[in-house]
């Protein structure tokens, strides 16, 4: 298990920079008066997407989960644009689900149920065998903790600036 290539300080700085940039974009056009629940909810979604995107971009394509996240975000945005034109784009994020299941049965994994749950949690985990899945999970956990920390600090910053 190689977690040494994950340098927390550089990951944090990369992530925070991107996230702040995204935050300013999200917050800029907004006027203070309009704060309906709907809008707050929309803003929440955008912020969450910004956080995930920043995290995935900070990791680039080094990891399967980051690639899966980026792909998912891109296809989602693409599908949203298509939906606005009246078309329905079916985004298949589980294209390789069948392949993953085959692997599982072949290896006779005893921990099939939990591995399945883990696969649902970790983006892109559907196509991985247990070995790689555990690797990705470890890296993903590390990135999630950094992400949570940076979002929290960003929140403090926003709190302090308003």
């Amino acid at each position, binding site marked *: *298990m*190689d977690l*040494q290539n994950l340098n*927390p*300080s550089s990951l*944090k*700085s*990369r992530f*925070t*920079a991107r996230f*702040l*940039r995204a935050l*300013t974009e999200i*917050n*800029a056009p907004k006027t*203070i008066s309009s*704060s*309906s*629940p*709907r809008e*707050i*909810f929309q*803003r*929440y979604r*955008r*912020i*969450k997407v910004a*956080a995930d995107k920043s995290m995935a971009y900070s990791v680039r394509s080094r990891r399967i989960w980051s690639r899966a996240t980026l792909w998912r975000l891109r296809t989602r945005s693409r599908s949203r644009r298509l939906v606005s034109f009246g078309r329905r784009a079916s985004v298949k994020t589980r294209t390789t689900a069948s392949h993953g299941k085959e692997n599982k049965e072949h*290896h006779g994994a005893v*921990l099939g149920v*939990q*591995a399945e*749950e*883990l696969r649902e*949690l*970790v983006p892109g985990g559907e196509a991985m065998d*247990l*070995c790689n899945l*555990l*690797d990705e999970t*470890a890296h993903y*956990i*590390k990135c*999630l*903790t950094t*992400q*949570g*920390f*940076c*979002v*929290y*600090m*960003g*929140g*403090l*910053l*926003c*709190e302090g*600036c*308003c």
Partner: protein
Amino acid sequence: MLHRLESLESCNYNGMDVAVLEKQAAGLKWQQQNYVVQNSNLVDLCASSVPQFQGLFGSNLGRGQMIELKRPEVFLGSDDFQEFVNFPVAGPEFGDSEKLDLVPHEAAADYCISRTSSCQMTAHNTSVMKEEREDTILEKMESAIGSGKESFNKRKAEAVADHKSKGKRIKGEGESEVKAKCSTEISRDSSKENSKASEVQKPDYILVRAHRGQATDSHSLAERARREKISKKMKCLQDLVPGCNKITGKTGMLDEIINYVQSLQRQVEFLSMKIAALNSSVENLPMKEFPAYVANFPAAAKLPEMAGLPSYFQLNPLQKESVNCMLNESMLPPQTATEGIASASVSSSSGITQLQPFSAWNMDPQGLSNMYNMGFY
């Protein structure tokens, strides 16, 4: 025998210098100790067979522990491998007798057989050891070993024919951490010709040993190797997920991991919701200094108590509605955390006065959900 003695002597001289520099290059530590021993009991060494040598080893070094002549079967896969592995990792501790016990058995066996051929290499390496770090030494060793890899099998065959130990030996020169490259030998017992040696070409080796009475065909060995890898990774994960030290067993560990990942994801969602609800117009974010500040935050995993957090939870009615709206849209599954949020947003109107320290990044998942529940009174 005489030839070996001579080579010993040549090594001893280097060993004298090296004994001063014991703190370095832990991969050669046991060899140094060999040299130290030989310095004092050179004559005895000549006449010693392997077990005697080991006994000498233990007594002369004054360790309180008797070196057990462990059967190689005990050295299974990852457990003892870890001990081997830890051996160079905790290098500078010279006085660690426990580790010494494990290696000399193999090392001594190694010693008797491969000493003549590899002594030159080790002598050279000990001399250069002063300037070089452990990993570069190991790289040299590996290159030296790798060059002779074609004759690897041959040497192994005749080596095994000489001594009866079953199972694997770790070549002393190539000993290193798990994460660094390990090169291992699998000895083929003359009496047990059917035990398979898992020849791995890639640098990261997993030791798989065939016990007595276990199947030794390629499938089961590959299966066992895979299981060893998985258990090794589970151990790494155990370090990452807090509060998993007591849990043994893969299923429990996986449950904990799943809970932890879920709580981390929920935490990020919650924090982003908080930011969205802040209603702040941020034009002048310190874009330059902030990332550096965040990056250099000391021990970022432990956050100080969020004294400012109470203000965050003073959700005005609008924000409470938004939270409810969010929950109604089933953004988050109805779990403990979100139920806590819902109850808090409904019940609290005057704000939160009391909060647990938000050291969420080091809390176990149970504690995390508890915190969510309790922090919203």
